[in-house]
């Protein structure tokens, strides 16, 4: 797993930071969430996803609800949230 920094140079969004955000919104420990776990099985629903999206948009990321919702795993999201060109 490599560190990633987004192109605007703000807070880097690493996979484990992403996992921590997901765990926080679900109210579980990050250790309970594997890269390829279906987050629906972990209890993710649309309102929690929106809260996450909101958090990340505030942090400057632009990714759509649809894209995240289509493949709800940490691994897929890490790809989506990676800055263009990487």
């Amino acid at each position, binding site marked *: 797993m490599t560190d990633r920094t987004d192109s605007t140079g703000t807070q880097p969004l690493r996979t484990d930071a992403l996992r921590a955000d997901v765990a926080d919104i679900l*109210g579980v420990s990050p250790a309970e969430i594997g890269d390829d776990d279906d987050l629906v099985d972990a209890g993710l629903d649309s309102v929690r996803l929106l809260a996450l999206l909101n958090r990340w948009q505030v942090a400057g990321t632009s990714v759509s609800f*649809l894209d995240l919702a289509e*493949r709800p795993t940490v691994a897929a999201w890490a790809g989506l949230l990676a800055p263009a060109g990487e």
Partner: protein
Amino acid sequence: MTATEAVPAAVSGPRDEAPAKRLALTGAQRGVWFAQAIDPANPVFNTGEYLELRGALDPAALVAAAQRAVVEADALHVRFAEDGSGVPWQHRVLPEAGEMPVIDVSAEADPRQAAEDAMRRDLWRPLDLSTDAMFANALFRLGPDHWAWYHRFHHIVIDYFGMSLLSRRAAELYSALVADAAPAASRFRPLEELVAEDEAYAASARHTDDRAYWTRRLAGRPAQVGLALGSAPTSHRFTRSVAELPPGLLERLEAAAARLGTVWPQLVAAAAGVLVSRVTGCSDVVLGWPVMGRMGSVAMRVPAMVVNVPPLRLTVDDGQPLSALLAHVAAESREVARHGRYRYEDLSRDLGVVPGGPRLFGPQVNVMPFEPDLRFAGIAAVAHNLSAGPVDDLTFNVYLRGRHEGLQLEVDANPALYSPEAVRAHQRRLVHLLAALADADPDTLVGDLDALPPDERDLVVRGWNDTARPVPATTLPELFAAQAARTPTALALVPDGGRALTYVELDERASRLATVLRAHGAGPGRVVAVALDRSVDLVVSLYAAHKAGAAYLPLDPDHPADRLAFMLEDAAPVCVVCDEATAGRLPAGMATVRADDAAAKPSEDAAGSPAGPDDPAYVIYTSGSTGRPKGVVVPHRGIVNRLLWMQDAYRLGPDDRVVQKTPAGFDVSVWEFFWPLLAGATLVLARPGGHRDPAYLADLFVRARVTTAHFVPSMLQAFLDEPSAAATCGSLRRVVCSGEALPEAAVRRFHTTLPGVELHNLYGPTEASVDVTAWACRPEAPAGPVPIGRPVWNTRTYVLDQRGRPVPVGAVGELYLAGVQVADGYLNRPDLTAERFLPDPFVPGERMYRTGDLARWRFDGALDYLGRNDDQVKIRGQRIELGEIESVLQAHPCVSAAAVVAREDRPGDRYLAAYVVPAGDVDVPELRKHLARSLPDAMVPSAFVTLDALPVTVNGKLDRKALPQPVRDQSNGADVPRTPMQEILCGLFADVLGLERVGPDDGFFELGGHSLLAAQLAARVRAVLGRDVPLGSVFAAPTPRGLAQLVEQGRDGDALAGLLPLRSGGSAPALFCIHPAGGLGWCYAGLLQEVPREHPVYAVQARGLDGREALPGSLQEMAADYVRQIQAVQPTGPYHLLGWSVGGVIAHETAVRLQQAGEQVGVLALLDAYPSEQWASLPPPDESDALTALLLMAGLDPATAPLPQPLRREDVIAHLRANGSAVGGLDASTLAAVVGVVANNAALMRAHRHSGFAGDALFVAATQPVARPLFAVPDGTLDRDGWASHISGELQLMELACTHPELVRPDVLRAIASVVARRLSQAPQLLPPRSDR
């Protein structure tokens, strides 16, 4: 190229697919399909919204974009159908954009309103799922640069999220069009992928796990989940209340959510959970929590119907901190997300949710935060929802439409359950709770959150209790004395059949007796017992006790000696006033005073202090749950308030006459005794016992010109049943009801029977001076339960929950009473008094009485009464504690445990049943005697059941619902079908449900039916009866009897009709089945299943079954009559005839006559029928033979029936009923007619001479011999070959290994029908009418 020119190319979407391919429905679609099929005309499944656009819009480009988006959305272009077994499917149609008119409403006075009106007109048009397009579009011009794009869809093809996918795609297309750029390719995916995914889920282990999770999670779910009691079918409309939430609330909620470690939508769920728990009074709450259902699924890209509404079950524990509740909501909502694909419709079925029963969930909480800025080339769109689909209960829709808009709360509710006020009230409460949650800290106890907004709290605590009214501090004897002084010579007392007394006469007699009582020690704070039947002496004694300053204690001379002895010991009266008749029933050693003795004694001055307002006026005993009655002590202050209020409210005048008919031991009698005589009116005394006799009362009312009367509601109904009751409206002015719930139907009947007479419904316990609330029942009142009204003067009524908090308006709570009428308490029972008479938490220093009654506030400030929260019951108005009866029962040495319940197994038939676990040999008559020794008659149960053990619930409490129904006389025959249609339907119900037998009043859903089975049933009824039965009929009338009524609507449903259509309709020639000897043709119903639908089937039944029509004089005459009847329903041949037994002989003759008339006869089927000449020498049948015929018609074998010979009518009827036969439902006069018909048919047959039939006939032979020859036929007498001389063609033989009676058994008939069906199919079709030939 302009933007609009791009349209045609864009619209010509993917048209090359094969359109007719059948596709299964997804689970989500199936849910909508069934709901719509139940009520095809319901438009509520149309969902719609409009997007408001402000800016320089290019309308043509918008139309093009919208149409193209629709064409791209594959799942919208379907139609639906169902196969014969009730399973729906869908098929594709060519994608069409459809018309999209542009409508300019800018010239209207209110353009938005005009546009919305037009949209709603479109929205409320029901769609036909098999033929109509599933969507519509229109663009409204509201003004310059102001537009509204309206789109409407059937919910079966789309949900809210799907709609947003479409809008988003249209915006994308529009933006490209106006920029003259190529739009991005559509990312929508086809419907097939969704269906495939859905089918894969249904077959997966995940599906099984999800089902297991939900059944486990919902075990023991609460009975009440909604904010309103009961349930209602999906209505055609919904009531909507819209509120903008306070500015900044979203930010406060977000901050609170962050503080509490959650997300704000879960605060909405928590607030709704608290609200529901406060309204239901139950910590167990089940909300509907819609989930998008698309996460990680192809559905994310399919604009289709996907959304699911799983239940969110919460425990709202008032003792927990808020942080715990929110952690609980978070954990539960995660589980919902995990298992949220399992359809709630399937779950409802798994759990046996039936219409009208406990629902799966109460309010839905639907938070829709996903609508970040939707822009059409820079023009922002604001969505306005018009309909979000059906609303079974109530839905809280919370929208976040862009941050600058803030939160919006729309409450949609089923108008059948919620009034507009209720919807608004729930909305205000939710907003209030949300604000409270936003400001609460994590340690706040859930119980400290206030569900009542301040104005509502003020209304229920103070506003509706603002009853203060100055009342003089006086006593009943002072009020009477003042009246006697005003009108000394007016008539005070008119006994029925005795001498009337004037005010002054009554005053003098009471004064004389008071002197005697004083001599015995009567005075303020002391008690004088009165043991007299209704009489002038009784009234004199009560007034005398008061004049002496004492309270009176009424004793019913009919009560058991034990009970009287207990009361006398407990109340310790100074003496008992009695007469010759009653003295003997009193325990020895009591000081007694003879009311009649006192009349002779001269009045002498015996000074004594009068009672004051706080001294007791009377002591009345009521049933006590711990096994002995308790005496309620009521002071003058309370009863004076009650009577002066009553006089102010109803205004008795000098010409009023009030009847005294309530026994003195029942506190209603107090106003009867004392109100008229403080108002100058006259008291009319009914004769003792007369209060139970409606005819006597009606007569008395007329004779004595009674203007005012009291009735317990059950007695009022009996009175209204009395034909002479109507005559009482000549004098009657008002009727006052109290003592038990007043049914709405009784009120309606009252106003019809006694027009112009007032009816008042009063409520109150003995502990609060008779009555504390009142309601005037007006004829023009809207439908609904009859309220108990509003508090009387100086009285407060509180409806509180278990923690003593006021419940919201409309919610059920326990009724507490406060104010001047609250009694002092229970005599000698400080423990009980402290338990029920509590400090008033709202008015310091005052007391309130805890009634144990359940009530709710209506929005107009009146109260509804809703029963008890304990084991107190009322039987004909008498208040009974079941515990008192139980403890007396348990005191018997042969009883180890006992339970008593009030049952109402048939409406209006309320009775007490005792369940006894014996500790030895139990002798029921002995138990009755034991109870009667200490309990009044009304408290002795009328049914006794012995059990090995009392059933208990999981909590170890008595499980009252599990107590069996006592076997009582069931002579009304309600449990057998009464018409052939009912019998057919009973059979179909049983088939579909997989049961052996179903009675006509058994409910489909109670027996395990569900929506899928209902669809099957509807399909079977259609197939068998050939009548179109919409699925909704099964829900509207879920019993065989009810459904039979619906099916028979609009045609003669007379089961005794000459020509009984077992199945009408159908284009092919009918099959006419001629009755057997007994004249009824119901036995042929079993043919329907196998005879193809296009053939109608008629039973031809005998004349005279009604007991009035003349019986035919010959078989020829009979056949000629049948030919006329047959030709009336089918003017031309070919005619198909069938007859069993005697019916075969008649069928033959009918066929001959049809041929003689030049008509063609197709099938002639003779079911074990023998030519008439073979009968000629046999003796005529007797009554026993006629009854045999009756059994035969019901398909029962008389030879094997366990009945004594010769047969008797009552045995035969009982046997018919026990076997579920409709024939057993016949009334006595029809049975007599049947016997006559049998005799006549037997005689006619013996006299008949056959003519020749030209053609073949089918002979169905029953080859098994019967155990006892029928009609005493000697062996070898009957020979089918005898037909050879009456039939020119072939007698084709079908042999069945059954007995003659078994030929009409359903399975045998089916075999016969399949052979007949083959012949029907070979016969020519209907010939044209003769004139055309």
